[in-house]
């Protein structure tokens, strides 16, 4: 038994990625849960509208962080502010009465606001009146499914070629590198498109999720996000020598996205120490877009910023992935001799 234990430790010590996963993952989970897993929203972006807006500002609970004051606007403007995520709560104080509009797609924020309704205000939950969790989760889950397909399945598909030695065979066929790359990625792109269609339709049908916004905008978000995740998948495959290595890396990329993208825990409630990470994750921007389009019918112009971030990510990630993949199948004189294909050559 002692020999077995010693052998196991020796193998473990030499599998650096597993050691990193074993040591890094608990630390990562601790930090993420410690700083990110907070349900209490302590700061709510608030708009005050109507003639009594300025007067109202002094009487509100400190949790309401006033970002907009407009004495001339009414409830219609308030709805637009919520629809475009410019505020989470809107207080409207007109001669005809007082109302409190709350964005129902931000579950924890809405619950926090409901606990602090000022006297005389009637709360009105918009976009998700029953604070239905499923409605809020489905748009984010569409992104998660795509992320999974894109990173795990694509990376496994490419790494399998390398493990079988068929990637090398492709490299000696009269194919251009671009033929191999497009031919390899296109099926996953089609599968991802099918997946997003199925998951979205199922979400709308099974969970009664509305589709209030622009379909072309949703299609643009989805296509861009697919490019990002396929790029991540190919990038993972270019630094993995085996399928198990690819899965380990994919897990390390997936976990932070689930925790820090705002999919479960609101970004606003996270500690600043980890919140910034969320802004570098593609799922964060897809969730903002998908929730806005499906649940609130957000103005497409307002979504251009998150879409732009996703486009930038797609260009960078996909570009790096294709560059590395291209280098594997068509080595240049300056190529790194320790790249996976090159390394295979010294084995025999």
């Amino acid at each position, binding site marked *: 038994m002692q020999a077995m234990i010693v052998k196991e430790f020796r193998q473990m010590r030499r599998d650096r990625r597993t050691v990193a996963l074993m040591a890094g993952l608990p630390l990562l989970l601790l930090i993420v849960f410690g700083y990110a897993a907070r349900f209490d929203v302590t700061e709510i972006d608030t708009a005050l509208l109507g003639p009594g807006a300025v007067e109202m500002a002094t009487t509100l609970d400190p949790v309401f962080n006033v970002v907009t004051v407009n004495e001339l606007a009414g409830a219609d403007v308030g709805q637009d502010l919520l629809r475009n995520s410019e505020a989470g709560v809107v207080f409207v104080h007109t001669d005809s009465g007082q109302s409190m509009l709350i964005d129902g797609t931000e579950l924890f924020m809405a619950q926090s606001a409901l606990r602090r309704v000022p006297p005389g205000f009637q709360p009105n939950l918009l976009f998700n009146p029953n604070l239905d969790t499923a409605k809020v989760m489905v748009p984010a889950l569409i992104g998660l499914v795509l992320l999974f397909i894109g990173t795990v399945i694509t990376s496994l598909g490419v790494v399998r070629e390398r493990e*079988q*030695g*068929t990637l*090398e*065979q492709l*490299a*000696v*066929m*009269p*194919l*251009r590198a671009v033929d191999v790359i497009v031919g390899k990625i296109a099926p996953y792109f089609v599968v991802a498109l099918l997946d997003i269609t199925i998951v979205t339709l199922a979400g709308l049908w099974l969970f009664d999720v509305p589709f209030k916004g622009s379909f072309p905008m949703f299609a643009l978000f989805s296509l861009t996000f697919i490019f990002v995740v396929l790029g991540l998948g190919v990038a993972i495959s270019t630094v993995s020598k085996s399928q198990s290595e690819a899965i380990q890396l994919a897990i390390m990329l997936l976990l932070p996205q689930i925790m820090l993208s705002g999919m479960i825990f609101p970004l606003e409630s996270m500690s600043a120490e980890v919140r910034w990470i969320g802004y570098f994750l593609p799922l964060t921007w897809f969730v903002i877009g998908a929730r806005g389009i499906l649940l609130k019918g957000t103005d497409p112009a307002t979504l251009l910023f998150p879409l732009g971030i996703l486009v930038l990510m797609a260009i960078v990630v996909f570009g790096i992935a294709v560059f590395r993949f291209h280098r594997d199948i068509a*080595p*240049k*004189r300056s*190529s790194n*001799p*320790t790249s996976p*294909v*090159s*390394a295979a*050559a*010294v*084995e*025999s």
Partner: protein
Amino acid sequence: MKPIEATGVTRTFGTFTAVNNANITLHTGEVVGLLGANGAGKTTLIKMILGLLIPTAGHIRLFGRPQSRQQRHRIGYVPQNLGLYPDLTAKENLEFRTKIFGVTAQNTGITPFGNKLVGSIPLGLQRRAAFAAATQHQPELLILDEPTSGVSPLARSKLWDQIHARAENETAVLVSTHYMDEALQTDRLIVMAEGKILADGSANEIVAGRKTVEITTDRWADAFNLLDCDSPDSSTPRVSLAGRKVRVMSQSIDTIRDKLDKAGINADVKLVDATLDETIVKLAS
């Protein structure tokens, strides 16, 4: 126009030199064996010829020109691990190749097992399928990396028949192997060890003039043990047994006679022609 012309080819990985200043040439219709132990540099050299690795130094020309994608139409390659998709049938694997090369499948010889997944058929059949896949486009240069590794003697013999048939059709064939008996199937041998080319010629040319000492004695076991102890490196044995005759490559006949006399072993000691195995062991050491 020579199918392969490599001059001063070197490939290093960090401080390790996998191939050191190799010069090789292959002519049309010639079967050339690349012979060497594991780690000799055969696969690295093959990968440089195929363009999978870029030489650190030296030049490689295929069909008289620098390597290019267009030349790949003229090359067939079977890697050690066969390069077939195990989750496709043999027929689907061939279909994939023929489409890429823009040819139609011909008498492939895989019909009996064509509809079976490659991963589910024996290694010998997998190698047949890989050979068929690599030759469907009638390549002018065929490169086979240890094509008979792990297959039965019968399957090996059939594969060599196919290789010779290809060569008769003007295909130049480069075969890497570490089996000495297979070396005799080739027209020419290139012997490699530690990244260097040690010999280049026919088996007869390589062996020509090389002698070994043959000892015939009733006390052959004692003689073997006595002389084997003197081998400087047990990984390259220079004393061998042929039946009950002891053969020694590394020591002079006078030295051996002297040692046997001192040990009181009465023996008939003479110089005989060396075998290819002995010559290669001697070269490698």
